[in-house]
């Protein structure tokens, strides 16, 4: 096998894994807290993409991509807050019904996007400094091409991950989140406003997805269904990651992203998709609790 091709795909895999991770982080955090999955999470990606498009339309400057990230984060967090406080909160203890209700939200948001921006999708022109690529022409890595947009994705993801880990580990909000995650009843009994924690974490997760949408917009056109193509693998990342663990989610995003990209050296995209699914099912045979198992004596989580 061509070594350069392998390295290129490896790098591709890392950037795919980054997108899976950014999409899955919010899902995983909320799942740990509330045991619910927001099926409209993919539409937060889409929203982020469209907000990036609007920002770059209004302020076309090389660094307005950073402004777009801020807007996308805030916009998606706001919509997330609406979904959580009007819908998800009402369906406590009915996780499967939450799936269906939020799927309804997802359909409505997609159709809204179709009506507002048209069905074809919009192109976000990445600033020039993101349109370059680093090419290695000599040495044993000769033939390796690293597009700077993909490098940028890795950096953003690393920054988001570090910031989130810091918030969870060091701040008061993180402390309360961890407490609620561990034992919701006990946390509520000791005066932690668990409902507000739910809301804040949900917003945070939606915001991160919005941010991921900006990155998606750099890679391809933003269409009403752009979120759908990333969200299903992100769901699998959550399933494999273990309950509400950032570390578990990161590891499983890395594994699935790399499998997806590296298998595409040998097979096409659709077979790669099947391969990921088979891998997750086989993984669950060995570790049904996911990469990181929660420590608990309760039988019914």
């Amino acid at each position, binding site marked *: 096998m061509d070594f350069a091709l392998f390295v290129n795909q490896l790098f591709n895999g890392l950037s795919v894994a980054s997108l899976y991770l950014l999409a899955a982080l919010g899902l995983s955090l909320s*799942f740990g807290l509330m*045991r*619910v*999955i927001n099926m409209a999470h993919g539409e937060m990606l889409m929203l982020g993409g469209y907000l990036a498009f609007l920002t770059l339309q209004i302020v076309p400057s090389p660094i307005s991509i950073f402004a777009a990230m801020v807007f996308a984060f805030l916009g998606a967090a706001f919509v997330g807050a609406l979904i959580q406080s009007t*819908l998800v909160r*009402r*369906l406590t203890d*009915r*996780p*499967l*019904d939450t*799936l*269906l*209700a939020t*799927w*309804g*939200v*997802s*359909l*409505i948001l*997609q*159709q809204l996007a*179709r*009506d507002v921006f048209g069905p074809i999708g919009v192109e976000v022109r990445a600033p020039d400094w993101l349109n370059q690529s680093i090419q290695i022409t000599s040495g044993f890595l000769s033939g390796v091409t690293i597009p700077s947009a993909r490098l940028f994705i890795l950096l953003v993801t690393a920054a988001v991950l570090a910031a989130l880990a810091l918030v969870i580990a060091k701040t008061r909000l993180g402390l309360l989140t961890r407490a609620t995650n561990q034992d919701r009843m006990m946390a509520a009994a000791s005066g932690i406003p668990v409902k507000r924690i739910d809301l804040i974490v949900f917003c945070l997760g939606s915001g991160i997805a919005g941010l991921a949408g900006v990155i998606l917009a750099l890679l391809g056109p933003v269409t009403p269904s752009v979120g*759908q193509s990333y969200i*299903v*693998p992100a*769901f*699998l990342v*959550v*399933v494999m990651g273990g309950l509400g663990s950032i570390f578990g989610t990161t590891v499983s995003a890395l594994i699935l992203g790399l499998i997806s990209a590296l298998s595409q050296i040998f097979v*096409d*995209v*659709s*077979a790669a*998709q*099947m391969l*990921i*699914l088979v891998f*997750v*099912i086989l993984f*669950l*045979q060995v570790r*049904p609790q996911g990469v990181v198992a929660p420590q608990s004596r309760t*039988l*019914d989580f």
Partner: protein
Amino acid sequence: MSAGLKTSSTIFAALLTCLAAAAPLALSAYDLNLLARFMSFALLAMGIVLIWGYCGILSLGQGVFFGLGAYAIAMHMKLAALPQGSVPDFMMWSGRESLPWWWAPLESGLVAVIAVFVVPAVFAGLFAFLVFSRRVGGTYFALITQALALAFATLLVSRQGATGGFNGLTNFSTLFGMDINASGRDVQLYLVTLALLVLTYFGLTMLLNSRFGLLLRASRDGENRVRFLGFNPTPLKVAAFAIAGMLAGLSGALFTVHAGNISPAMVGVVPSIEMVIWVAVGGRYSLIGAIAGAIFLNFARDWISSAFPTLWLYFIGALFILTVTLLPSGLAGLVTQNLRKTPAAP
């Protein structure tokens, strides 16, 4: 369920059957064909009642099993219309000269019929066994089935030469040696569908009222308690899922015969989850509710999406939200609310 209600719902079902049997006299050929398609969907919907209502398993991938049954019969109909040894037209366009190995056995009508029942059931059972035996369930299971639906549909689209790709399989002319377009054939096929629907309804009613049904409900409401009582819920859930898969396969086969085509657009993520909303609206604890939900929602879809094309997604989206939040037992729940206590949500 009280004895009185049992008789009254049997009488109700019998009345509905008579009404449906008379439908060919009253409906135009077009409407009869639509009704026949939607009645095929109703078979699948009853399978969802079995697994979702009575077992607490939400599957977002029933389209996969629907597709397995549908493609099995469609492949047979393609082969039956061909002279011995040649390949279907779309394979020639893709430059394929011989049949893939998994096409060949379906040349026989008997094998095709067996495949319609067995392939989805075995696949569903195997899939459920792998997941449930490791005690993975609930939301995780729903997400995995959705990934399955996505992978299945993408695979069908990408294997153009073997599956007909995006366009799927169409242009059928014969079924088991009969001309499928002969006059009066539509009424016969409709009546066959109705008979299968009625058989399935009574079969499932018996199953749900048996000890098996009781254990299913018990493991829905408290899986670990059932384990402590000395039962293993896994084989029960696997069996229920396999039965639902088989019904979905049969549903797909009947649909393909009525609609005259099958394509990946019928089996992917979106159609799979729409199948669940039929049952949610009709009533997840009620077989009749699920039948009604499948038929009425599809007629509504036919009407709304032709009259106001962009409204359909808003409508179905709102329906998802409102049914689940306001009417968790569906329309059937409204009807039976005064007659008896509805089963508690899991």
